[in-house]
């Protein structure tokens, strides 16, 4: 069986913008989050988010363009933080792998991506000028002007624009996919890269995801669903998965990209191996578009399939990085799914935590940054904590890592869960590298 390993990680997130920094923040239990600074949210019901501090999207996209002569990008960087975050994390990951010459290489690029939504600038450029006083839209007037509109909306909406820029910047030739399975997108993208390498289609691939919905219409879409925390006065403690008083998730933004390689190829080039990826499972709830299955049926199926794919018994798992969003429904149904899977086999569930308590919910990028957290746990030997728990919700009957800092532990196998709107689920299993 072909073995697949992780040899590099790039992270641009709310708690850190480097891989070492991310590991350190995870170990120290340091949370991101604060008042929204990317726009004036003062009149919004939710005015907090976990933003990436100091991120310059123009510099990130400019770096990709600098690496490839003639490469063009028609998005306005400030309008497309998502793509810029993905490109930055991928280049950070590639650079850290000490592979300066990707040119001519068949390098897979598989990224999960999220809703581009509509930005304020796009509404002002593409909608407002053709609205009358009653809010009626003059479609004919819009049509006559469409060809000359300056907005970069069409380019920003392309789901695989980041893939194009990354491949071009690295001089690589694919294969490449983008995955749009909502909050499970980047976990599924990592899974796809894993399958591609295991089946021999490629030797190495960059895999992960990116997202940023911290803009007015992006945040509104979640507010209208009632999904966001409104703890505006205490943003650092707003993300509290498994806590009895959780009231929704803290919207985050960011990107994480892992370099996956066929193990012997990684060893042959002397790469430092951070962890092994051994299992991938997906499922669909087939229940409702608005809520997970009440018994966590789909979540359990994804975990079971990942275990089967890895050839593991449930008892082998030492740690689960839960999807753990901090919404009332998610955490209880996910707990139910975990408890039923393990206790149904006469086993106590492994230690569970949600690193969203620190990073917030990165939506399409969540699976990738949480895969990175699992790699850190295996590599560094600690359980990432679930911070901000004042009173564990009795409906969450799993052993939660209630701590303010990482807990030293011998972690051999770690599972990462990602569950998306629409009932799309993914579980990944990572193993400590033991040669």
């Amino acid at each position, binding site marked *: 069986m072909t073995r697949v390993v992780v040899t590099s990680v790039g992270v641009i997130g709310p708690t850190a913008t480097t891989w070492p920094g991310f590991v350190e923040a995870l170990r120290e239990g340091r949370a991101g989050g604060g008042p929204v600074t990317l726009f*004036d949210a003062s009149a919004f019901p939710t005015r907090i988010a976990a933003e990436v501090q100091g991120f310059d999207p123009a510099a990130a996209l400019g770096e990709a363009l600098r690496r490839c002569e003639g490469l063009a990008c028609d998005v306005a960087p400030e309008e497309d933080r998502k793509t810029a975050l993905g490109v930055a994390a991928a280049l950070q990951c590639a650079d850290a792998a000490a592979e300066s010459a990707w040119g001519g290489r068949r390098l897979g690029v598989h990224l999960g991506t999220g809703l581009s939504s509509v930005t304020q600038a796009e509404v002002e450029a593409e909608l407002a000028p053709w609205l009358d006083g009653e809010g009626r839209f003059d479609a004919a007037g819009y*049509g006559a002007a469409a*060809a000359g509109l300056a907005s970069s909306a069409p380019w920003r909406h392309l789901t695989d624009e980041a893939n194009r820029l990354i491949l*071009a910047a690295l001089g690589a030739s694919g294969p490449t996919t983008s995955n749009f399975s909502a909050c499970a997108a980047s976990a599924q993208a990592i899974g796809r890269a894993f399958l591609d390498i295991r089946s021999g289609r490629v030797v190495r691939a960059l895999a992960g995801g990116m997202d940023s919905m911290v803009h007015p219409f992006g945040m509104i879409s979640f507010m209208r*669903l009632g999904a966001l925390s409104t703890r505006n006065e205490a943003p650092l403690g707003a993300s509290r998965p498994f806590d009895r008083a959780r009231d929704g998730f803290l919207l985050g933004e960011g990107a994480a990209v892992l370099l996956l390689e066929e193990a012997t190829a990684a060893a042959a080039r002397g790469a430092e191996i951070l962890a092994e990826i051994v299992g991938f499972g997906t499922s669909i709830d087939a229940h*409702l578009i608005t809520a997970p299955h009440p018994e966590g049926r789909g979540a359990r199926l994804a975990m079971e399939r990942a275990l089967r794919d890895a050839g593991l018994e449930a008892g082998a798992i030492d740690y689960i990085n839960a999807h753990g969003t901090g919404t009332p429904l998610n955490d209880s149904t996910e707990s139910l799914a975990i408890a039923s899977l393990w206790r149904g086999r006469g086993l106590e569930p492994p230690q569970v935590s949600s690193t969203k308590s620190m990073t917030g919910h990165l939506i399409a990028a969540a699976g990738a940054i949480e895969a990175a957290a699992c790699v850190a746990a295996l590599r560094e030997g600690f359980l990432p904590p679930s911070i901000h728990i004042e009173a564990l919700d009795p409906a969450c009957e799993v052993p939660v890592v209630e701590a303010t800092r990482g807990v030293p532990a011998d972690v051999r196998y770690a599972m990462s869960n990602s569950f998306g709107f*629409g009932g799309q689920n993914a579980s990944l299993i990572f193993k400590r590298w033991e040669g």
Partner: protein
Amino acid sequence: MDGREVVITGLGVISAAGVGWAEVAAAQAVAPRAVEGFDASGFPAWAQVAYQVPSLRPQPYMKRRKDLKVMSRDAQLALVAAGLAVEDAGLDPREPGAWPFAAEDVALYMGVGLEPGDVTELGPAAAAARGADGRIDLEALGSVGIDRIPPLSALVTLPNMALAHVSINLELMGRGEALSPWGTAGLDAVAAAAESVARGQCDVALAGAADGDVDLSGVSRALRLGITGEGGAVLGEGGAFFVLEARQHAEARGQRWLARLARHVAHAAPTRQLGVFDAGLVGSVAEAALAGLAPGSPVAVVGASSGHPGWAAQERAALEDVLERRGGGAVEQRGGRVGWAGAASGLLELADALASRRASGGRESLVGLAWAPTGQASALVLDRVGEGGR
């Protein structure tokens, strides 16, 4: 494909050519019609026509008809195409528990398009928040405009909701992924599903794509990305799904099959400038796909140029060159029947070609191609066409 043989046991297709494979195959000539659904009169004349599905009715496949309010056109097209495919595979999706095997084991892989819905849906909110200078007043948006945005709007515009609606209505709980590289998503989704069947992760999978982007934002986007234009492609919509099965599984239940999935090839040559059709890339993918077929065996390569006259000429030259080196084969360009259908591009043309073979009894292998403006190309090889029974 390594592992078990994977065959197509059901074909569902909906396009401007018709609803269902037989209707599609019977449609001799398909022409674009005046765009319906919004006032397109301000757009250039060539953007006022499209290959639209004239009467889209997903209701027969829906468990709860009130869900129609939260289904994008992508989702409706997907549900019809998926339902047709399942019926064609000898199953009745309208019967609860229709699957004669565990629904938990039926996978669903889908190519999804760009975000459905258009910007005009935000009209009431924008009108409430628009200041005298035409800019959006965020204080007004946050306090008044917000309530004018439908609560479930995000769940309508998430592309993967098309997959969710299919899974809910057809009760599919197997493995599932929503792939979205614009242009190759459909073929890539079928290939991912086939791999899952071949590896033994499931015996049955439903796989395909749908795209219904002929709305105001979609027309504007295609125009500005250079997909459509004077002398360019015409926008289209539609959906195509295959039921894939392990051959042994299909034959054990007495189900005829239409073709075997023999091979998938995907290359990327990222374009420095978006929207430049790369005939060389498409040709190289076709060449790699054809390498898996017996030399000289009859084959038709179904192009990816989506009816764009300029692209079609480049593509034909590249493919004829490849086929000449191989020693024979035909080029088919069916984009003039379906237009540019985003995520369903390529797959829709391949389904169109398979439907015609089914009607005519044609048995040559088919190589379906797809191309994305971001510089990716995929090919899917169907061989043993028509050998699996009636």
